C-alpha cells in the first residue's frame, strides 16, 4: 500500500504573487519594469511638451548645415564652410588625439614615478611622493589652467628669439621653439619613395613579432635562448635604415624658422593642446603611479626568492615572474584611469582647446540652439568611446589574467 499521495493541486491565488517566493521575483521585476517605463514615458512626454511650448522639434538635420566657425586645430580638412557634422568630427578627433597622447605619457610618467617611489634611494622616493600627493590632491582643472598659464605667461614671445643676442633660444640644437604662442617642432616631410620606407618599417614590426614567436617555439623545443633583444633591435633598425638610404633619404624634417613676427614651418602645437596634454598626463600619471606601486607590492617577496632559487637571472625574474603577476593587479585600475583621462579631456574648454565639448557641445550648440540633440549626441559619443576603451582593455586584461582551471 502506498502512503504517498499526490499533492493537492492548489489553485493560484493572487496573494501568491507577493508571498510565494516562486512568483515574487516575477512580480518585483514586472513592477520595476512598469515603474521604469512609466518614468521614461513621463520624461519623454515632458520633453515633448516642453519642446512644443518652445516651438522646437527634435531632429538632427542641423548637422548638415554650414557651421560657419573656425576651429584652430584640425586633423582633417576643415573650414568655416564645412558642416556642423564635420565640425563635430574635427572636435571628436581632437578629443581622441589628446586622450591618446595623454594615455601614453600618463603611462610612462606613472610607471616611472611608481617604480621610483619604491626605490631604495631615499631622496628620489620622497621626491616622487611629493609629486604623487600634490597632483592627486589638487583638482585637475586647476592643473590644466596652471599649465596653460605657465605656457602663456612664462614663455618668451616669438620676437624674443630675434636678433644677434636673442633673449630666448631654441631648444635641442635649434629644432624646437617654446613660445607663448605655442611650441614649434620639426615636421616630417614625405617625398617620393617615402611610402617604401613606411612599408618596410611596418614589415619589420611584423618581422619582430614573427621572430618572437619563432624564438619562443625554438626555446621550447631545444631549450636554447637566442639573443632576442639584439636580434629584435636589428630587425627594427636595419631594414628601415637601408630602405631610407637606398631610396635617397625621402623622409626629411621641416624645421621651424623665425620669419617676420612668428615662426614658419615645422609643426605648430598650440599651447592649449600642450597644456591639456601635460596636465592630464601628470595628473593621471600620479594615480597610475599609485596603481603601479600597489601592483608591485602585491607580488609577494617569496616569488622573487623562488625565482632566484631556481637560478633565474634578475632581469628575467622581473620579466617572467614579477611583471606578469603585477600586471594582473595593475591593469584593471589602469583601464579606469585611461577612461578618467578621456573623460577629463572634456575640460579642454578651460583652455580653449577645440575638442568635442567645445565644438558639438559648445559653439554648435549655441549657434543652432539645439541643446537636447547636441547633448544627447555628445553623451552618446563619450559613452561609445568609454565602452570601446574598456572593452579593448578588458580583452588585454583577459589575456594576462590568471588562468584558472
Amino acid at each position: 500500500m502506498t502512503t504517498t499521495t499526490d499533492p493537492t493541486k492548489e489553485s493560484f491565488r493572487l496573494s501568491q504573487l507577493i508571498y510565494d517566493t516562486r512568483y515574487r521575483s516575477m512580480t518585483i521585476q514586472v513592477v520595476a519594469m512598469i515603474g521604469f517605463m512609466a518614468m521614461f514615458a513621463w520624461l519623454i512626454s515632458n520633453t515633448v511638451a516642453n519642446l512644443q511650448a518652445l516651438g522646437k522639434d527634435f531632429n538632427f538635420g542641423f548637422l548638415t548645415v554650414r557651421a560657419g566657425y573656425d576651429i584652430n586645430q584640425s586633423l582633417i580638412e576643415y573650414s568655416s564652410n564645412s558642416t556642423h557634422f564635420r565640425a563635430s568630427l574635427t572636435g571628436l578627433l581632437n578629443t581622441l588625439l589628446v586622450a591618446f597622447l595623454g594615455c601614453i605619457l600618463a603611462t610612462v610618467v606613472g610607471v616611472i614615478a611608481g617604480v621610483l617611489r619604491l626605490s631604495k634611494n631615499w631622496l628620489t622616493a620622497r621626491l616622487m611622493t611629493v609629486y604623487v600627493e600634490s597632483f592627486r590632491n589638487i583638482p585637475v582643472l586647476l592643473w590644466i589652467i596652471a599649465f596653460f598659464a605657465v605656457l602663456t605667461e612664462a614663455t618668451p614671445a616669438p620676437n624674443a628669439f630675434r636678433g644677434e643676442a636673442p633673449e630666448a633660444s631654441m631648444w635641442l640644437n635649434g629644432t624646437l621653439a617654446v613660445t607663448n604662442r605655442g611650441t614649434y617642432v620639426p615636421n616630417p616631410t614625405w617625398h617620393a619613395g617615402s611610402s617604401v620606407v613606411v612599408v618596410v618599417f611596418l614589415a619589420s614590426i611584423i618581422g619582430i613579432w614573427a621572430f618572437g614567436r619563432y624564438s619562443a617555439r625554438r626555446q621550447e623545443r631545444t631549450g636554447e635562448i637566442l639573443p632576442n633583444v639584439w636580434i629584435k633591435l636589428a630587425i627594427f633598425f636595419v631594414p628601415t635604415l637601408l630602405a631610407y638610404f637606398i631610396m635617397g633619404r625621402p623622409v626629411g624634417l621641416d624645421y621651424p624658422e623665425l620669419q617676420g613676427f612668428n615662426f614658419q614651418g615645422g609643426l605648430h602645437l598650440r599651447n592649449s593642446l600642450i597644456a591639456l596634454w601635460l596636465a592630464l598626463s601628470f595628473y593621471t600619471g600620479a594615480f597610475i603611479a599609485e596603481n603601479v606601486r600597489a601592483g608591485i607590492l602585491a607580488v609577494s617577496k617569496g616569488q622573487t626568492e623562488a625565482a632566484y632559487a631556481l637560478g633565474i637571472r634578475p632581469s628575467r625574474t622581473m620579466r617572467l615572474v614579477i611583471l606578469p603577476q603585477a600586471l594582473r593587479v595593475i591593469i584593471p585600475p589602469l583601464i579606469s584611469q585611461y577612461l578618467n583621462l578621456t573623460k577629463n579631456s572634456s575640460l579642454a574648454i578651460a583652455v580653449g582647446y577645440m575638442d568635442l565639448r567645445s565644438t558639438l557641445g559648445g559653439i554648435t550648440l549655441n549657434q543652432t540652439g539645439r541643446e537636447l540633440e547636441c547633448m544627447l549626441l555628445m553623451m552618446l559619443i563619450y559613452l561609445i568611446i568609454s565602452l570601446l576603451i574598456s572593452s579593448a582593455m578588458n580583452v588585454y586584461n583577459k589575456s594576462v589574467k590568471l588562468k584558472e582551471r
Partner: protein
Amino acid sequence: MSDLHAHNLAFVRDKMLPESEPPITERGAVKWVRENLFSGYLNSILTVVSIYVIYVILSHILPWLLNSVWVANSLEECRQIRDTVNEGEPSACFAVITERWKQLLYGFYPAESYWRANLSFVLLFVALAPILFDNLPRKLLWFSGLYPFLAFWLIWGGSIWLPISVLAGFVIAYVAFNLLERFGGLAGAIAAFVVPILWWLFLAGPVADAIHSILPIGMEVANSKQIGGFMISVIIGLAGIVLSLPIGIVLALGRQSDLFIVKTICVGFIEFIRGVPLITLLFTASLLLNYFLPPGTNFDIVLRVVIMVTLFAAAYMAETIRGGLAALPKGQYEAADSLGLDYWKAQRLIIMPQALKISIPGIVNNFIGLFKDTTLVIFIGIFDMLGLTNTIRASTEWNGVYWELFIFVALVFWICCFGMSRYSQWLERKLQTEHR
C-alpha cells in the same frame, strides 16, 4: 696541561679591549647617506638628478616666496613695493589673498552672515564625528541626522518652518508605517514610501507657509547666486556624497541581484553615468533638466547641480559598494540564509554592515574625487574658488595675478583632500587588523 691558563701565558689577552667605534663610513649620517643615496651607480645618478630637480624648483620658487608682499591694495602697489623694498627681485604678491580671502572662501555671501556659514561648518564636524569615529556616543547620530536640515536653514536662511516641515515628512513616514504595518509588511513599506512623497510634493510647502504666517521665525534669505567659493564646493560635495549613499546601495544591490530586469536597469544606469564626463551631466543640469521636468518647473541652479552630482556619485558609489559586497566571504550570505533570514533582513543585519565597513575607504576616496570635481561648476556659472580667481583677476586692482591665487586654491584643496586620504588610509589599516 692543566697549568696552561690565561694568567701564565704571555700571548693570551686576559682583559677585554674597549669597544672601538665602527669606521666612519659605517656609522651615523655617513652610513645613512651611503646606504640610502649612493649605494650603487644607478642610485647615485638618481640622487644627483633628484638634487638637481629640487635645486631648480627651489631656486625659482624660494626667492619669489621669501620676498612676498602681504599688504597692498593692488597689483600696482605690490610691484612698487617690489621695486623699492625688494630692489626688483621677483616677489609674490600675496596681498591679493589678504584682501580677498573671504571672497575666495564664501563667494558673494553677505559679510554680516558669515557667522551662519562658519557655524554650519563647525557643526558639520560635530555631525561627522560619530560617523567617522566609532568610539563616540551613538546618541550623537541623532544630531547627524538633523544636521542637513539645520545646515540648509543656516546657509540659505528663510523660514525655519520649511526644513522642519520637510523633516516632518520622515515622522509622517514612520507613523504611516506603524499604522499600516498591521495589514502586512508590504503595505507598511509602500505607505512609508508613498505618504511622505505626497506630503513633500503637495503639503510641506503650504503647511510651512501657513505656520510661518502665524509664527514667523526665520533669517534673512541668502540667494544661491551669492553662495560661492570654498563654501559651494563643500555644500555640493557633501550633499552629493550623502544623498548618493542610499541610491548607491540600492544600485549595488540591484546589480548583484538575480532579477534580470532590475539588474539590467541598474547596470545600464551605472555604465551610462560612468561612461560620460561629469561636465556633460552638469550641462544637462543647466540646459536640459528643464526639458525633462513638467513645463513651468524652474528651480534653483545649486539644487539642480546637486541632483546631477548625486546621480553621478551614486553610480560610482554603487561600484564601490559592489566591491565591498564582493569582498565578503560567501559564507556570510550562506550563514544568513541558513538562519532563515529573508533578503532584506539578511542585507540589513548581516551583509550591509560588513560590506559598508569594508567600503568606507572607497567611499572616502569617492568623496575626494567628487570634492575635486566640484571645481567644474564654474562652467555653468557657479562661482567656486577657481571661478572666483577669474572674478578677482577681472577687477582693475588685481588684473594679472595668477600664481598667488592658484597657490591659495591649490593649498585649500590639497589640505582637505590630503587630510581625507590620510583618514581613509588610517581607516583601511584599522579595518584590516580587525579582520586578522
